[in-house]
């Protein structure tokens, strides 16, 4: 036995399904009755909680709060309605599962799998039938029918697509325009009050929008393009070329608030570092260098709005934005 070399490598044999072990509830009728009682208790508990839920809905006023640890001040109506519903459902489930586990037969059953593959003759029959019946359609021979059918079906799919055209207007130059024009006053958001340079201390920011023309309403779409952030630094702190410097006024600089990455509002201004942070994807812009990107995924600086002061001493735009605000798009040239 010890030195017998077999050419057959035998894997371990399948000992078959293990012996069925009976549960307590299978052998002891008292245990079975106990299990039945347990299931019944679970179902009754569920019913009780349904009553709790309905009672809470109808009778508990929804402005009463009471204190619970971890949850803090909790709304009684909300909590009891929710707990009532939750436990009503949970106990039905627990009861059903307990019933199945304890009282339903738990002998494992074996079922045979059948091969999916059809017998060869069935397959041949199928192929023959398809060939015959499809042949009857004559598509193979009558290529004119085939081609024109393809044309008709294919082209008919275009109509529903074309009918989607009125989903919206063509973009045209919409993405390039904002409400800012030469002489538009900067007003506070909210409040619509015009701003003088002396209203801002060094280190101050202001959320601004263009002043509304008489009778005009401001929509969210307008805000989504026009929102501007006004920041005051000391003029010596700028590291700008002459042109960009001329777009500032006495240390006050204005940028589009709409992120050049994906359009979130950029307004986290860090007064000491002079950096602007966009909280969506953490693009960081250096205000002293015309909102140059110094960290994060944005590929372009924030557009700068050229500002100056009008005859009454209020801050106004010198000109519209010189580039599109907001995220990039195919037609954007820079």
């Amino acid at each position, binding site marked *: 036995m010890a030195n017998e070399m077999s050419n057959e490598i035998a894997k371990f044999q399948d000992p078959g399904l293990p012996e069925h072990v009976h549960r307590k509830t299978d052998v002891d009728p008292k245990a079975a009755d106990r299990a039945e009682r347990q299931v019944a208790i679970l179902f009754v508990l569920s019913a009780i909680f349904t009553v709790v839920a309905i009672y809470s809905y109808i009778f508990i006023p929804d402005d009463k709060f009471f204190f619970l640890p971890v949850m803090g*001040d909790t709304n009684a109506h909300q909590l009891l309605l929710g707990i009532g519903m939750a436990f009503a459902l949970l106990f039905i489930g627990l009861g059903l599962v307990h019933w199945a586990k304890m009282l339903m037969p738990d002998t494992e059953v074996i079922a045979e799998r059948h091969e999916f593959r059809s017998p060869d003759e069935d397959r041949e029959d199928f192929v023959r039938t398809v060939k015959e019946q499809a042949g009857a359609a004559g598509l193979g021979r009558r290529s004119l029918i085939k081609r024109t059918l393809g044309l008709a079906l294919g082209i008919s799919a275009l109509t529903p697509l074309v009918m989607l055209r009125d989903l919206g207007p063509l973009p045209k130059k919409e993405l390039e325009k904002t409400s800012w024009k030469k002489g538009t006053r900067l007003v506070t958001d909210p409040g619509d009050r015009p701003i003088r340079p002396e209203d801002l201390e060094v*280190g101050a920011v202001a959320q601004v929008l263009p002043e509304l023309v008489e009778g005009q309403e401001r929509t969210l779409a307008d805000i989504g393009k026009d929102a501007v952030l006004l920041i005051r630094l000391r003029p010596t702190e700028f590291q700008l070329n002459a042109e960009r410097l001329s777009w500032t006024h006495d240390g006050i600089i204005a940028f589009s608030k709409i992120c050049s990455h994906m359009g979130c509002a950029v307004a986290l201004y860090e007064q000491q570092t002079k950096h602007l942070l966009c909280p969506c994807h953490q693009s*960081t812009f250096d205000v002293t260098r015309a909102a140059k990107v110094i960290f994060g995924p944005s590929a372009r600086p924030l557009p700068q709005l050229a500002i100056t002061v009008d005859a009454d001493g209020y801050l106004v735009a010198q000109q519209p934005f010189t580039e599109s605000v907001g995220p990039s798009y195919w037609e954007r040239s820079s």
Partner: protein
Amino acid sequence: MNSGIKKLSRYRRHRYAGPALLVVALISLGTTFQVASALPSTTRMETTAQSTLIEEGKRIFAQGCSSCHGLNAEGGSIAPSLIGVGAASVDFQVGTGRMPMADMSQQAMRKKPVYNAEQTAALAAYVASLAPGPDSVNEAQLTYERDGNTAQGGQLFRTNCAMCHNFAGQGGALTQGKYAPTLMGVDAKYIYEAMITGPQSMPVFSDKTITPEEKLSIIKWIKAAEKEPNLGGASLGRVGPVTEGLLVWSLGLGLLIGIAVWLTAKAK
């Protein structure tokens, strides 16, 4: 063999010995850390009846602040100049315990104040005497309950404050480890002073761009948010979907899988 050791060794292989040891180790580690990191208490300063407020402030300043801010508050490489910051800045920084700064990390943290109210007032008076700046805010000005509009305050908050402090004033991250702190549990006075002085990374919110009435509305909204109970249940921090996702994977799926294990286990 010593009977004491015998008793101990009996429980060495107990089912719960491992977890119990882990719990004991964690508790001792945690308590040790808590005790060790508690700030040392500082000695109280004394004011003499004869000193004027400004002189007293100068004295305290020389002892507690000049090492970083310079003997004449002119600033230096490690701390900015305090000339012109005004009484409001001092009241805010010292009153919230941010100053004196305990460790020279990215940002001064709110902590238990070192100086009491009189000392803070003295310091504020001294700094205010150096150059004009925003005045401390007194309680009489904080009439937000009467003069503030909660809804308008919310609009102002969401436009001007939420981007740093989060929609519910829970605080948020800035770059390089700086952060906007939580606004929960902050005195109305300090909120107001922070808006007008722009401490550290926070910008200044001038009275012309956000009027005093609007500032009171913002404070009223913050106080309302602080007092507002969480209607839907435990709040999970009021920081949004991150904690909600954590809960669903840990408690939600965890519970459900636990029940699935029970469901498919063979009954005895």
